[in-house]
Protein backbone atom coordinates (compact mmCIF):
# COMPACT_ATOMS: atom_id res chain seq x y z
CA UNK A 1 0.00 0.00 0.00
CA UNK A 2 2.97 2.25 0.63
CA UNK A 3 3.80 2.14 -3.07
CA UNK A 4 1.22 4.80 -3.84
CA UNK A 5 2.93 7.71 -2.04
CA UNK A 6 6.24 9.32 -2.93
CA UNK A 7 9.00 8.66 -0.41
CA UNK A 8 9.25 11.14 2.50
CA UNK A 9 12.13 9.39 4.20
CA UNK A 10 14.82 7.41 2.44
CA UNK A 11 17.69 6.18 4.54
CA UNK A 12 20.47 3.94 3.31
CA UNK A 13 22.99 2.18 5.50
CA UNK A 14 22.71 4.65 8.35
CA UNK A 15 25.32 4.39 11.09
CA UNK A 16 25.58 6.36 14.30
CA UNK A 17 28.54 5.76 16.56
CA UNK A 18 29.53 7.38 19.85
CA UNK A 19 32.94 7.59 21.47
CA UNK A 20 32.41 6.21 24.97
CA UNK A 21 35.49 6.23 27.21
CA UNK A 22 37.81 3.87 25.32
CA UNK A 23 35.32 1.95 23.22
CA UNK A 24 33.27 3.05 20.25
CA UNK A 25 29.56 2.29 20.61
CA UNK A 26 27.53 1.74 17.47
CA UNK A 27 23.96 2.77 18.28
CA UNK A 28 22.85 2.26 14.69
CA UNK A 29 24.55 -0.26 12.46
CA UNK A 30 23.48 0.10 8.88
CA UNK A 31 19.79 0.86 8.98
CA UNK A 32 18.01 1.28 5.64
CA UNK A 33 14.37 2.06 5.19
CA UNK A 34 11.91 4.07 3.15
CA UNK A 35 8.80 5.74 4.49
CA UNK A 36 6.30 7.06 2.00
CA UNK A 37 3.86 9.87 2.12
CA UNK A 38 0.83 9.27 4.33
CA UNK A 39 2.28 6.18 5.98
CA UNK A 40 1.71 5.61 9.70
CA UNK A 41 4.77 3.83 11.02
CA UNK A 42 5.59 2.66 14.53
CA UNK A 43 9.21 2.12 15.43
CA UNK A 44 9.58 -0.32 18.28
CA UNK A 45 12.35 -1.90 20.18
CA UNK A 46 13.64 -2.45 23.69
CA UNK A 47 15.74 0.22 25.35
CA UNK A 48 19.21 0.29 23.85
CA UNK A 49 17.91 -0.91 20.50
CA UNK A 50 18.72 2.42 18.87
CA UNK A 51 15.20 3.73 18.40
CA UNK A 52 15.90 7.06 20.17
CA UNK A 53 19.02 7.49 18.08
CA UNK A 54 17.02 6.80 14.94
CA UNK A 55 14.36 9.26 15.99
CA UNK A 56 16.96 11.98 16.61
CA UNK A 57 18.38 11.34 13.16
CA UNK A 58 14.96 11.28 11.49
CA UNK A 59 14.14 14.51 13.32
CA UNK A 60 17.36 16.15 12.12
CA UNK A 61 18.43 16.79 15.69
CA UNK A 62 21.53 14.76 15.01
CA UNK A 63 23.63 13.80 12.00
CA UNK A 64 24.67 10.24 11.09
CA UNK A 65 28.25 9.02 11.33
CA UNK A 66 27.83 7.25 8.03
CA UNK A 67 25.10 6.74 5.44
CA UNK A 68 22.58 8.80 3.53
CA UNK A 69 19.38 10.36 4.75
CA UNK A 70 17.11 11.95 2.17
CA UNK A 71 14.12 13.80 3.57
CA UNK A 72 11.53 14.87 1.03
CA UNK A 73 14.07 14.68 -1.78
CA UNK A 74 16.74 16.61 0.11
CA UNK A 75 19.97 15.05 1.33
CA UNK A 76 20.01 16.15 4.97
CA UNK A 77 22.83 13.96 6.25
CA UNK A 78 25.34 16.60 5.19
CA UNK A 79 23.73 19.83 6.38
CA UNK A 80 25.10 22.26 8.96
CA UNK A 81 23.36 23.42 12.15
CA UNK A 82 21.54 26.36 10.61
CA UNK A 83 20.28 24.34 7.65
CA UNK A 84 19.15 21.53 9.96
CA UNK A 85 17.26 24.09 12.07
CA UNK A 86 15.48 25.25 8.93
CA UNK A 87 14.60 21.66 7.94
CA UNK A 88 13.26 20.96 11.46
CA UNK A 89 11.24 24.11 11.26
CA UNK A 90 9.68 23.40 7.85
CA UNK A 91 9.54 19.63 7.50
CA UNK A 92 9.21 18.09 10.94
CA UNK A 93 6.66 18.29 13.72
CA UNK A 94 7.81 16.88 17.05
CA UNK A 95 5.57 15.43 19.73
CA UNK A 96 7.38 14.55 22.95
CA UNK A 97 6.53 12.27 25.83
CA UNK A 98 6.76 15.17 28.29
CA UNK A 99 4.94 17.67 26.01
CA UNK A 100 7.70 20.31 26.41
CA UNK A 101 5.40 23.29 26.44
CA UNK A 102 6.69 26.69 27.56
CA UNK A 103 5.16 26.94 31.04
CA UNK A 104 4.55 30.67 31.06
CA UNK A 105 3.12 30.95 27.57
CA UNK A 106 -0.50 30.44 26.58
CA UNK A 107 -1.56 27.48 24.44
CA UNK A 108 -1.82 29.87 21.48
CA UNK A 109 1.67 31.21 21.99
CA UNK A 110 3.09 27.71 22.40
CA UNK A 111 1.56 26.70 19.10
CA UNK A 112 2.84 29.87 17.43
CA UNK A 113 6.43 29.17 18.47
CA UNK A 114 7.65 27.31 15.34
CA UNK A 115 6.17 30.04 13.13
CA UNK A 116 8.15 32.70 15.03
CA UNK A 117 11.29 31.00 13.82
CA UNK A 118 10.02 30.84 10.25
CA UNK A 119 9.61 34.63 10.42
CA UNK A 120 5.93 34.64 9.65
CA UNK A 121 4.03 37.86 10.22
CA UNK A 122 2.11 38.07 13.45
CA UNK A 123 -1.43 38.17 12.07
CA UNK A 124 -0.83 35.17 9.83
CA UNK A 125 0.91 33.35 12.68
CA UNK A 126 -2.08 33.88 14.95
CA UNK A 127 -4.47 32.60 12.33
CA UNK A 128 -2.40 29.48 11.61
CA UNK A 129 -2.02 28.72 15.33
CA UNK A 130 -5.76 29.13 15.87
CA UNK A 131 -6.44 26.81 12.98
CA UNK A 132 -4.06 24.17 14.42
CA UNK A 133 -5.72 24.39 17.83
CA UNK A 134 -9.10 24.02 16.14
CA UNK A 135 -7.80 20.84 14.47
CA UNK A 136 -7.11 19.30 17.91
CA UNK A 137 -10.40 20.61 19.38
CA UNK A 138 -8.77 23.06 21.78
CA UNK A 139 -10.05 26.32 20.36
CA UNK A 140 -11.77 27.15 23.64
CA UNK A 141 -8.56 26.65 25.66
CA UNK A 142 -6.44 28.92 23.49
CA UNK A 143 -5.51 31.44 26.19
CA UNK A 144 -4.89 28.91 28.97
CA UNK A 145 -1.41 28.23 30.24
CA UNK A 146 -0.13 24.64 30.40
CA UNK A 147 -0.69 24.41 34.18
CA UNK A 148 -4.37 25.17 33.57
CA UNK A 149 -4.72 22.24 31.17
CA UNK A 150 -5.05 18.47 31.72
CA UNK A 151 -2.36 16.08 30.51
CA UNK A 152 -4.35 15.10 27.44
CA UNK A 153 -5.01 18.74 26.61
CA UNK A 154 -1.33 19.56 26.99
CA UNK A 155 -0.40 16.82 24.58
CA UNK A 156 -3.00 18.10 22.13
CA UNK A 157 -1.45 21.57 22.36
CA UNK A 158 1.91 19.95 21.61
CA UNK A 159 0.37 18.14 18.62
CA UNK A 160 -1.11 21.42 17.38
CA UNK A 161 2.36 22.95 17.69
CA UNK A 162 3.76 20.06 15.61
CA UNK A 163 1.06 20.53 12.95
CA UNK A 164 1.14 24.29 12.70
CA UNK A 165 3.98 24.41 10.16
CA UNK A 166 2.20 21.76 8.00
CA UNK A 167 5.25 19.51 8.17
CA UNK A 168 5.86 16.59 5.87
CA UNK A 169 6.63 14.36 8.85
CA UNK A 170 5.02 14.10 12.28
CA UNK A 171 7.50 12.53 14.67
CA UNK A 172 6.09 11.35 17.99
CA UNK A 173 8.30 9.99 20.77
CA UNK A 174 6.26 7.95 23.26
CA UNK A 175 3.40 10.44 22.98
CA UNK A 176 1.22 8.48 25.41
CA UNK A 177 3.99 7.63 27.87
CA UNK A 178 2.99 10.26 30.42
CA UNK A 179 -0.78 9.83 30.08
CA UNK A 180 -3.17 7.37 31.66
CA UNK A 181 -4.52 4.79 29.24
CA UNK A 182 -7.95 6.35 28.63
CA UNK A 183 -6.34 9.67 27.64
CA UNK A 184 -3.69 7.73 25.70
CA UNK A 185 -6.40 6.14 23.57
CA UNK A 186 -7.83 9.56 22.92
CA UNK A 187 -4.45 10.83 21.69
CA UNK A 188 -3.96 7.76 19.51
CA UNK A 189 -7.39 8.34 18.00
CA UNK A 190 -6.26 11.85 17.19
CA UNK A 191 -3.17 10.46 15.46
CA UNK A 192 -5.35 8.14 13.41
CA UNK A 193 -7.52 11.01 12.35
CA UNK A 194 -4.45 13.05 11.38
CA UNK A 195 -3.27 10.06 9.37
CA UNK A 196 -6.59 9.83 7.55
CA UNK A 197 -6.26 13.53 6.80
CA UNK A 198 -3.04 12.80 4.91
CA UNK A 199 -0.24 13.27 7.42
CA UNK A 200 2.82 11.06 7.50
CA UNK A 201 3.39 9.85 11.05
CA UNK A 202 6.34 8.11 12.67
CA UNK A 203 5.64 7.01 16.21
CA UNK A 204 8.35 5.71 18.50
CA UNK A 205 7.22 3.46 21.31
CA UNK A 206 8.10 0.37 23.27
CA UNK A 207 4.42 -0.43 23.86
CA UNK A 208 2.97 -3.10 21.56
CA UNK A 209 -0.60 -1.88 22.11
CA UNK A 210 0.35 1.61 21.01
CA UNK A 211 2.26 0.30 18.01
CA UNK A 212 -0.76 -1.77 17.03
CA UNK A 213 -2.49 1.45 15.96
CA UNK A 214 0.03 1.96 13.17
CA UNK A 215 -0.05 0.60 9.64
CA UNK A 216 3.46 -0.66 9.65
CA UNK A 217 5.69 -1.73 12.51
CA UNK A 218 9.45 -1.58 12.36
CA UNK A 219 11.26 -3.37 15.16
CA UNK A 220 14.85 -2.45 15.94
CA UNK A 221 17.28 -4.58 17.87
CA UNK A 222 20.92 -3.82 18.56
CA UNK A 223 20.96 -1.03 16.06
CA UNK A 224 19.57 -3.04 13.18
CA UNK A 225 16.12 -3.51 11.67
CA UNK A 226 14.86 -6.83 13.02
CA UNK A 227 11.50 -6.80 11.30
CA UNK A 228 9.47 -4.49 9.12
CA UNK A 229 5.85 -5.60 8.87
CA UNK A 230 2.83 -4.00 7.27
CA UNK A 231 -0.30 -4.96 9.13
CA UNK A 232 -3.91 -5.01 8.14
CA UNK A 233 -5.58 -1.76 8.95
CA UNK A 234 -7.41 -2.00 12.25
CA UNK A 235 -10.89 -0.58 12.46
CA UNK A 236 -10.38 3.01 13.51
CA UNK A 237 -11.19 3.74 17.12
CA UNK A 238 -14.29 5.84 17.35
CA UNK A 239 -13.22 9.39 18.18
Amino acid at each position, binding site marked *: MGENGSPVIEIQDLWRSYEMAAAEVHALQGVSLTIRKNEYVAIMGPSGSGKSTLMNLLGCLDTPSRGRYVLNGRLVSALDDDEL*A*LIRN*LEIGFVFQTFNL*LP*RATALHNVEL*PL*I*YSRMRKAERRERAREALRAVDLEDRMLHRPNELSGGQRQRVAIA*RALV*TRPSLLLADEPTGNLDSAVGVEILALFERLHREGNTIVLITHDRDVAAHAQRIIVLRDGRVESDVEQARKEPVAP
Partner: protein
Amino acid sequence: MSLLEGIRIALGSLIANPLRSFLTLLGIIIGITAIVAVISVINGLNLYVADKLSNQGPGVFVITRFGLISNHEEFLKAIRRNKRLRLADANELRERSELAAAVGSEVHSTDNLTLRGETIKNVDIGGITAEILQIEPYEVDGGRLITASEVEHTVPVAFIGADVADRLFPAVDPLGRQIRVGNRNVTVVGIAKRRGSVFGFSRDNFVKIPISLHQRLYGVRPSVNISVKVADPSRMADCMDEARLILRMRHHLKYDAPDDFGFLTAEGVNSLWENLTRIIFRVAVFVVGISLVVGGIVVMNIMLVSVIERRREIGLRKAVGARPRDIRLQFLIESVVLSSVGGVIGISVAWLLAWTIRTYSPLPADYPAWAPILAFLVCGSIGVFFGLNPAAKAARLDPIEALRADA
Protein backbone atom coordinates in the same frame (compact mmCIF):
# COMPACT_ATOMS: atom_id res chain seq x y z
CA MET B 1 12.83 35.95 16.15
CA SER B 2 12.02 39.62 16.32
CA LEU B 3 13.59 42.00 18.82
CA LEU B 4 10.22 42.83 20.34
CA GLU B 5 9.47 39.14 20.84
CA GLY B 6 12.82 38.77 22.61
CA ILE B 7 12.16 41.72 24.89
CA ARG B 8 8.72 40.33 25.72
CA ILE B 9 10.18 36.93 26.62
CA ALA B 10 12.90 38.60 28.69
CA LEU B 11 10.49 40.80 30.65
CA GLY B 12 8.27 37.76 31.18
CA SER B 13 10.99 35.73 32.83
CA LEU B 14 12.07 38.82 34.80
CA ILE B 15 8.60 39.33 36.23
CA ALA B 16 8.09 35.62 36.87
CA ASN B 17 10.74 35.77 39.57
CA PRO B 18 10.65 39.29 41.01
CA LEU B 19 12.71 38.80 44.16
CA ARG B 20 15.48 37.01 42.34
CA SER B 21 15.48 39.63 39.60
CA PHE B 22 15.70 42.42 42.17
CA LEU B 23 18.57 40.81 44.08
CA THR B 24 20.34 40.15 40.80
CA LEU B 25 20.01 43.76 39.80
CA LEU B 26 20.97 45.26 43.17
CA GLY B 27 24.60 45.76 42.16
CA ILE B 28 23.69 47.56 38.96
CA ILE B 29 20.96 49.57 40.67
CA ILE B 30 23.35 50.77 43.37
CA GLY B 31 26.08 51.50 40.84
CA ILE B 32 23.86 53.48 38.50
CA THR B 33 22.16 55.30 41.38
CA ALA B 34 25.55 56.27 42.78
CA ILE B 35 26.94 57.50 39.50
CA VAL B 36 23.88 59.51 38.48
CA ALA B 37 23.59 60.92 42.01
CA VAL B 38 27.26 61.96 41.97
CA ILE B 39 26.75 63.59 38.57
CA SER B 40 23.70 65.40 39.96
CA VAL B 41 25.49 66.66 43.05
CA ILE B 42 28.60 67.79 41.18
CA ASN B 43 26.49 69.40 38.51
CA GLY B 44 24.51 71.12 41.26
CA LEU B 45 27.70 72.27 43.00
CA ASN B 46 29.06 73.67 39.74
CA LEU B 47 25.87 75.60 39.08
CA TYR B 48 25.82 76.82 42.67
CA VAL B 49 29.43 77.95 42.53
CA ALA B 50 29.07 79.57 39.14
CA ASP B 51 26.08 81.41 40.51
CA LYS B 52 27.41 82.42 43.91
CA LEU B 53 31.08 81.95 44.60
CA SER B 54 32.36 84.44 42.09
CA ASN B 55 31.12 87.87 43.10
CA GLN B 56 32.29 89.60 39.96
CA GLY B 57 30.16 90.02 36.94
CA PRO B 58 31.50 89.46 33.43
CA GLY B 59 34.36 91.64 32.29
CA VAL B 60 35.83 92.11 35.76
CA PHE B 61 39.16 90.86 37.07
CA VAL B 62 40.90 91.37 40.37
CA ILE B 63 44.64 91.71 40.88
CA THR B 64 45.82 90.39 44.23
CA ARG B 65 49.12 89.61 45.84
CA PHE B 66 48.69 85.87 45.26
CA GLY B 67 46.00 85.28 42.70
CA LEU B 68 44.67 81.72 42.46
CA ILE B 69 47.21 79.32 43.88
CA SER B 70 46.22 75.71 44.18
CA ASN B 71 49.37 74.14 45.59
CA HIS B 72 51.41 74.65 48.68
CA GLU B 73 54.84 74.90 47.08
CA GLU B 74 53.66 77.56 44.69
CA PHE B 75 52.25 79.43 47.67
CA LEU B 76 55.56 79.34 49.57
CA LYS B 77 57.38 80.74 46.53
CA ALA B 78 54.76 83.43 46.11
CA ILE B 79 55.06 84.51 49.74
CA ARG B 80 58.75 85.19 49.27
CA ARG B 81 58.45 86.70 45.81
CA ASN B 82 55.26 88.76 45.82
CA LYS B 83 55.27 92.19 47.41
CA ARG B 84 52.14 93.59 48.91
CA LEU B 85 50.15 95.61 46.40
CA ARG B 86 49.83 99.29 47.28
CA LEU B 87 47.21 101.91 46.63
CA ALA B 88 49.78 103.57 44.38
CA ASP B 89 49.77 100.46 42.12
CA ALA B 90 46.04 100.93 41.65
CA ASN B 91 46.45 104.62 40.95
CA GLU B 92 49.08 103.89 38.33
CA LEU B 93 46.74 101.43 36.64
CA ARG B 94 43.87 103.88 36.73
CA GLU B 95 46.01 106.53 35.06
CA ARG B 96 47.75 104.40 32.44
CA SER B 97 45.32 101.67 31.42
CA GLU B 98 43.46 102.44 28.24
CA LEU B 99 41.25 99.35 28.18
CA ALA B 100 39.94 99.58 31.74
CA ALA B 101 36.64 101.32 32.36
CA ALA B 102 37.10 101.51 36.14
CA VAL B 103 39.79 100.60 38.64
CA GLY B 104 38.96 100.18 42.31
CA SER B 105 40.92 99.15 45.37
CA GLU B 106 39.93 97.31 48.48
CA VAL B 107 41.73 96.16 51.60
CA HIS B 108 40.33 93.66 54.02
CA SER B 109 40.71 93.13 57.72
CA THR B 110 38.64 91.24 60.22
CA ASP B 111 37.37 92.80 63.42
CA ASN B 112 34.65 92.41 66.03
CA LEU B 113 31.88 95.00 66.13
CA THR B 114 30.14 95.97 69.36
CA LEU B 115 27.11 98.16 69.85
CA ARG B 116 25.14 98.44 73.11
CA GLY B 117 26.32 95.06 74.37
CA GLU B 118 25.67 93.20 71.08
CA THR B 119 28.93 91.87 69.59
CA ILE B 120 29.40 90.44 66.11
CA LYS B 121 32.58 88.50 65.69
CA ASN B 122 34.81 88.37 62.64
CA VAL B 123 33.16 91.03 60.56
CA ASP B 124 34.88 91.68 57.24
CA ILE B 125 35.96 95.32 57.39
CA GLY B 126 36.59 96.46 53.83
CA GLY B 127 38.43 99.67 53.04
CA ILE B 128 37.33 100.70 49.57
CA THR B 129 37.56 103.28 46.88
CA ALA B 130 34.19 104.36 45.53
CA GLU B 131 34.56 102.38 42.28
CA ILE B 132 34.51 99.03 44.12
CA LEU B 133 30.85 99.24 44.99
CA GLN B 134 30.00 99.69 41.32
CA ILE B 135 32.42 97.13 39.94
CA GLU B 136 31.41 94.22 42.14
CA PRO B 137 28.45 95.45 42.25
CA TYR B 138 26.54 96.00 45.47
CA GLU B 139 22.85 96.73 45.34
CA VAL B 140 21.48 99.28 47.78
CA ASP B 141 18.62 98.34 50.05
CA GLY B 142 18.49 101.66 51.85
CA GLY B 143 20.55 104.84 51.86
CA ARG B 144 23.38 105.21 49.35
CA LEU B 145 26.87 104.06 48.35
CA ILE B 146 30.08 105.67 49.62
CA THR B 147 31.17 108.51 47.34
CA ALA B 148 34.58 109.29 45.84
CA SER B 149 34.73 112.54 47.73
CA GLU B 150 34.18 110.73 51.05
CA VAL B 151 37.08 108.43 50.20
CA GLU B 152 39.28 111.36 49.28
CA HIS B 153 38.51 113.24 52.47
CA THR B 154 38.54 110.27 54.85
CA VAL B 155 34.96 110.91 55.98
CA PRO B 156 33.91 108.38 58.67
CA VAL B 157 30.97 106.75 56.86
CA ALA B 158 30.00 103.06 56.43
CA PHE B 159 28.06 100.95 53.95
CA ILE B 160 26.97 97.84 55.83
CA GLY B 161 25.83 94.31 54.97
CA ALA B 162 22.36 93.02 55.79
CA ASP B 163 23.58 90.73 58.61
CA VAL B 164 25.38 93.56 60.35
CA ALA B 165 22.29 95.76 60.01
CA ASP B 166 20.02 93.04 61.42
CA ARG B 167 22.25 92.19 64.35
CA LEU B 168 23.22 95.68 65.45
CA PHE B 169 19.95 97.42 64.67
CA PRO B 170 17.27 94.79 65.15
CA ALA B 171 14.51 97.32 65.85
CA VAL B 172 15.52 100.62 64.29
CA ASP B 173 16.57 101.99 60.93
CA PRO B 174 20.40 101.96 60.91
CA LEU B 175 20.66 104.87 58.47
CA GLY B 176 22.31 107.89 60.07
CA ARG B 177 23.24 105.98 63.23
CA GLN B 178 26.77 105.40 64.37
CA ILE B 179 28.75 102.19 64.81
CA ARG B 180 32.21 101.83 66.25
CA VAL B 181 34.87 100.51 63.88
CA GLY B 182 38.39 100.16 65.28
CA ASN B 183 38.39 103.10 67.64
CA ARG B 184 36.32 105.48 65.51
CA ASN B 185 32.64 106.16 65.34
CA VAL B 186 31.41 105.99 61.77
CA THR B 187 27.99 106.89 60.41
CA VAL B 188 25.95 104.34 58.48
CA VAL B 189 24.99 105.84 55.12
CA GLY B 190 23.81 102.76 53.26
CA ILE B 191 22.69 99.16 53.62
CA ALA B 192 23.41 96.50 51.00
CA LYS B 193 20.73 94.23 49.63
CA ARG B 194 20.95 90.72 51.12
CA ARG B 195 23.29 88.47 49.09
CA GLY B 196 22.71 85.18 50.90
CA SER B 197 25.30 82.62 51.90
CA VAL B 198 27.62 80.21 50.14
CA PHE B 199 28.30 76.83 51.78
CA GLY B 200 27.02 78.27 55.05
CA PHE B 201 29.27 81.35 54.95
CA SER B 202 27.30 84.55 55.07
CA ARG B 203 28.09 87.10 52.42
CA ASP B 204 26.27 89.85 54.32
CA ASN B 205 28.62 90.08 57.27
CA PHE B 206 30.62 93.13 56.15
CA VAL B 207 31.21 96.82 56.72
CA LYS B 208 32.68 98.95 53.93
CA ILE B 209 34.46 102.15 54.87
CA PRO B 210 36.65 104.53 52.83
CA ILE B 211 40.07 102.98 52.18
CA SER B 212 41.75 106.11 53.56
CA LEU B 213 39.93 105.63 56.86
CA HIS B 214 40.75 101.91 56.86
CA GLN B 215 44.46 102.65 56.51
CA ARG B 216 44.27 105.10 59.39
CA LEU B 217 42.51 102.54 61.62
CA TYR B 218 44.28 99.32 60.62
CA GLY B 219 47.56 100.57 59.14
CA VAL B 220 48.91 100.53 55.59
CA ARG B 221 50.42 97.07 55.69
CA PRO B 222 47.55 94.95 54.30
CA SER B 223 47.92 94.25 50.60
CA VAL B 224 45.45 96.05 48.34
CA ASN B 225 43.21 94.10 45.97
CA ILE B 226 42.73 95.95 42.71
CA SER B 227 39.47 95.36 40.84
CA VAL B 228 39.40 96.28 37.16
CA LYS B 229 36.31 96.58 35.04
CA VAL B 230 37.06 96.16 31.36
CA ALA B 231 35.49 98.68 28.98
CA ASP B 232 34.87 96.04 26.32
CA PRO B 233 34.30 92.60 27.92
CA SER B 234 35.40 90.88 24.69
CA ARG B 235 38.86 92.40 25.22
CA MET B 236 39.27 91.07 28.76
CA ALA B 237 42.49 89.19 27.91
CA ASP B 238 44.04 92.27 26.31
CA CYS B 239 43.13 94.37 29.31
CA MET B 240 44.74 91.82 31.65
CA ASP B 241 47.91 91.85 29.53
CA GLU B 242 47.96 95.62 29.66
CA ALA B 243 47.56 95.60 33.46
CA ARG B 244 50.28 92.98 33.77
CA LEU B 245 52.65 95.12 31.70
CA ILE B 246 51.97 98.25 33.71
CA LEU B 247 52.48 96.51 37.05
CA ARG B 248 55.63 94.69 35.91
CA MET B 249 57.14 97.96 34.78
CA ARG B 250 56.20 99.60 38.01
CA HIS B 251 57.71 96.70 40.01
CA HIS B 252 60.85 96.77 37.79
CA LEU B 253 60.63 93.04 36.99
CA LYS B 254 63.20 91.53 34.65
CA TYR B 255 61.78 90.19 31.38
CA ASP B 256 62.15 86.57 32.49
CA ALA B 257 61.01 87.03 36.09
CA PRO B 258 57.59 85.68 37.00
CA ASP B 259 54.78 88.07 37.92
CA ASP B 260 54.88 89.14 41.55
CA PHE B 261 51.10 89.46 41.67
CA GLY B 262 48.18 87.34 40.53
CA PHE B 263 44.81 87.55 38.78
CA LEU B 264 41.40 86.41 39.93
CA THR B 265 38.62 86.07 37.37
CA ALA B 266 35.20 84.47 37.56
CA GLU B 267 36.33 81.99 34.92
CA GLY B 268 39.50 81.29 36.86
CA VAL B 269 37.60 80.54 40.06
CA ASN B 270 35.15 78.38 38.18
CA SER B 271 37.79 76.45 36.33
CA LEU B 272 39.73 75.85 39.54
CA TRP B 273 36.52 74.60 41.07
CA GLU B 274 35.70 72.44 38.11
CA ASN B 275 39.18 70.93 38.21
CA LEU B 276 38.48 69.96 41.78
CA THR B 277 35.08 68.45 41.04
CA ARG B 278 36.48 66.66 38.01
CA ILE B 279 38.88 64.83 40.30
CA ILE B 280 36.05 63.96 42.70
CA PHE B 281 34.05 62.79 39.72
CA ARG B 282 36.84 60.55 38.42
CA VAL B 283 37.31 58.93 41.79
CA ALA B 284 33.56 58.38 42.05
CA VAL B 285 33.39 56.87 38.56
CA PHE B 286 36.20 54.50 39.44
CA VAL B 287 34.55 53.35 42.67
CA VAL B 288 31.17 53.04 40.99
CA GLY B 289 32.80 51.22 38.09
CA ILE B 290 33.82 48.46 40.48
CA SER B 291 30.24 48.17 41.66
CA LEU B 292 29.04 47.95 38.05
CA VAL B 293 31.54 45.23 37.22
CA VAL B 294 30.37 43.26 40.24
CA GLY B 295 26.78 43.91 39.14
CA GLY B 296 27.65 42.64 35.68
CA ILE B 297 29.21 39.48 37.07
CA VAL B 298 26.06 38.83 39.10
CA VAL B 299 24.00 39.26 35.93
CA MET B 300 26.29 36.82 34.11
CA ASN B 301 25.94 34.35 36.95
CA ILE B 302 22.16 34.50 36.95
CA MET B 303 22.12 34.16 33.17
CA LEU B 304 24.26 31.02 33.43
CA VAL B 305 21.84 29.62 36.01
CA SER B 306 18.98 30.55 33.72
CA VAL B 307 20.56 28.71 30.78
CA ILE B 308 20.86 25.56 32.87
CA GLU B 309 17.35 25.85 34.29
CA ARG B 310 15.87 26.34 30.87
CA ARG B 311 17.74 23.65 28.97
CA ARG B 312 14.49 21.97 27.99
CA GLU B 313 13.10 25.24 26.69
CA ILE B 314 16.28 25.76 24.67
CA GLY B 315 16.10 22.17 23.39
CA LEU B 316 12.49 22.63 22.40
CA ARG B 317 13.16 25.93 20.64
CA LYS B 318 15.94 24.26 18.71
CA ALA B 319 13.70 21.30 17.85
CA VAL B 320 11.04 23.56 16.36
CA GLY B 321 13.58 25.43 14.25
CA ALA B 322 15.54 27.97 16.29
CA ARG B 323 19.03 28.39 14.90
CA PRO B 324 21.96 28.78 17.31
CA ARG B 325 22.02 32.49 16.53
CA ASP B 326 18.31 32.81 17.46
CA ILE B 327 19.02 31.28 20.87
CA ARG B 328 22.09 33.46 21.33
CA LEU B 329 20.10 36.56 20.46
CA GLN B 330 17.32 35.60 22.86
CA PHE B 331 19.69 35.24 25.81
CA LEU B 332 21.64 38.36 24.88
CA ILE B 333 18.42 40.36 24.74
CA GLU B 334 17.46 38.91 28.11
CA SER B 335 20.71 39.93 29.68
CA VAL B 336 20.53 43.43 28.16
CA VAL B 337 16.91 43.85 29.25
CA LEU B 338 17.82 42.61 32.73
CA SER B 339 20.64 45.09 33.20
CA SER B 340 18.72 47.91 31.49
CA VAL B 341 15.86 47.43 33.93
CA GLY B 342 18.48 47.79 36.66
CA GLY B 343 19.65 50.98 34.96
CA VAL B 344 16.14 52.41 34.77
CA ILE B 345 15.55 51.68 38.45
CA GLY B 346 18.93 53.20 39.31
CA ILE B 347 18.19 56.35 37.29
CA SER B 348 14.79 56.66 38.97
CA VAL B 349 16.25 56.34 42.45
CA ALA B 350 18.94 58.89 41.54
CA TRP B 351 16.26 61.25 40.25
CA LEU B 352 14.46 60.92 43.56
CA LEU B 353 17.71 61.59 45.45
CA ALA B 354 18.47 64.64 43.31
CA TRP B 355 14.94 65.90 43.82
CA THR B 356 15.26 65.47 47.58
CA ILE B 357 18.59 67.33 47.68
CA ARG B 358 17.22 70.06 45.43
CA THR B 359 14.14 70.50 47.57
CA TYR B 360 15.64 70.32 51.03
CA SER B 361 19.04 71.97 50.51
CA PRO B 362 20.22 75.06 48.63
CA LEU B 363 22.14 72.86 46.19
CA PRO B 364 20.43 72.83 42.76
CA ALA B 365 21.23 69.12 42.31
CA ASP B 366 20.09 67.86 38.95
CA TYR B 367 21.57 65.68 36.26
CA PRO B 368 22.07 66.86 32.71
CA ALA B 369 20.14 65.06 29.96
CA TRP B 370 23.17 63.05 28.90
CA ALA B 371 23.49 61.38 32.33
CA PRO B 372 20.51 58.99 32.08
CA ILE B 373 21.32 58.28 28.43
CA LEU B 374 24.91 57.46 29.34
CA ALA B 375 23.78 55.34 32.31
CA PHE B 376 21.39 53.48 30.05
CA LEU B 377 24.09 52.86 27.45
CA VAL B 378 26.51 51.69 30.15
CA CYS B 379 23.88 49.23 31.41
CA GLY B 380 23.22 48.00 27.90
CA SER B 381 26.93 47.42 27.36
CA ILE B 382 27.19 45.58 30.68
CA GLY B 383 24.28 43.41 29.55
CA VAL B 384 25.94 42.62 26.23
CA PHE B 385 29.39 42.05 27.69
CA PHE B 386 28.33 39.85 30.57
CA GLY B 387 25.60 38.16 28.52
CA LEU B 388 27.91 36.99 25.74
CA ASN B 389 29.23 33.97 27.56
CA PRO B 390 25.88 32.62 28.85
CA ALA B 391 24.26 33.27 25.46
CA ALA B 392 27.03 31.41 23.65
CA LYS B 393 26.62 28.51 26.09
CA ALA B 394 22.89 28.39 25.39
CA ALA B 395 23.43 28.54 21.62
CA ARG B 396 25.93 25.68 21.76
CA LEU B 397 23.66 23.32 23.73
CA ASP B 398 23.03 20.03 21.95
CA PRO B 399 19.25 19.86 21.41
CA ILE B 400 19.13 16.15 22.24
CA GLU B 401 20.93 16.61 25.55
CA ALA B 402 18.88 19.70 26.31
CA LEU B 403 15.56 17.96 25.68
CA ARG B 404 16.60 15.07 27.89
CA ALA B 405 17.47 17.36 30.81
CA ASP B 406 15.47 17.20 34.02
CA ALA B 407 12.73 19.76 34.10
